[in-house]
């Protein structure tokens, strides 16, 4: 395993751990951004440049900002009195550990069946463009519709209600 991979994996998992363990919400949101950045670098390591740049553009440039805006608008700077972890935190931890155990066992069991190293796929942005309007045009249109619906829905849900005249 190359040292770059170890570094990126440590960055990503460290960011994820910090995100769920930190006390202040804004720090947790910034740690999530670090995890997103680590993942973008992992995509670049896997020769998926378009996915890596899209990850930076969408997740760091939009989703992270959405999260911090939501924290600001809901006064996330105040800490709850009973602490940030719920009362049943042990059960949550056990469930997560069980899920990791199952996934890890599945990965390590099946590692013999997968070919270990294939050649670098020569994927250009042109191929991605052709695929998007060729083979994947239906998912593209559906995702466009979904994004429109989500935009309108989010605006309506978060809008101030007009005062009804009494």
């Amino acid at each position, binding site marked *: 395993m190359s040292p770059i991979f170890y570094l990126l994996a440590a960055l990503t998992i460290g960011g994820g751990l910090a995100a769920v363990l930190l006390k202040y919400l804004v720090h947790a949101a910034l740690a999530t951004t670090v995890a997103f950045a680590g993942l973008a670098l992992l995509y670049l390591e896997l020769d998926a440049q378009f996915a890596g740049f899209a990850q930076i553009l969408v997740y760091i440039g939009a989703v992270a900002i959405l999260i911090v805006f939501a924290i600001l608008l809901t006064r996330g700077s105040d800490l709850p009195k009973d602490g940030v972890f719920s*009362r049943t935190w042990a059960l949550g931890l056990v469930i997560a550990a069980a899920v990791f155990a199952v996934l890890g066992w599945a990965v390590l069991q099946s590692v013999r069946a997968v070919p270990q190293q294939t050649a670098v796929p020569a994927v250009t942005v042109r191929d991605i463009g052709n*695929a998007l309007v060729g083979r994947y045009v239906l998912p593209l249109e559906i995702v466009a519709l979904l994004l429109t619906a989500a935009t309108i829905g989010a605006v309506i849900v978060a809008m101030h209600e007009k005062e009804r005249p009494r």
Partner: protein
Amino acid sequence: MTSVGVSTPLAGYLLVAAMLFAIGLAGALVRRNAIMVLIGIELMLNAANLNLIAFWRFGPHPELLTGMMFAIFAIAVAAAEAAVGLGLVIAIHRHTNTTELDKINRMKG
């Protein structure tokens, strides 16, 4: 960019994804604040994306771009879902003046 020296097997990426998924799940289950749950969900979606890209890279037909397309659409859908989810959290905060999940336990406003 391929790594200098020994290249990383597929299992490495899958384990990282599994670990990130478990961390996201733990975050969604353990924290009180609604926004932290959403952060946990985003981490889980990202872990799944990493899985998709890793399988695309090491799979039999990377030139078909199936894995990368799936991952790109998943990124778009996750962004939409984050927007709607956070809009909901803001609306609930406006209504009940709190974002703690333990306190939002009544259907009556």
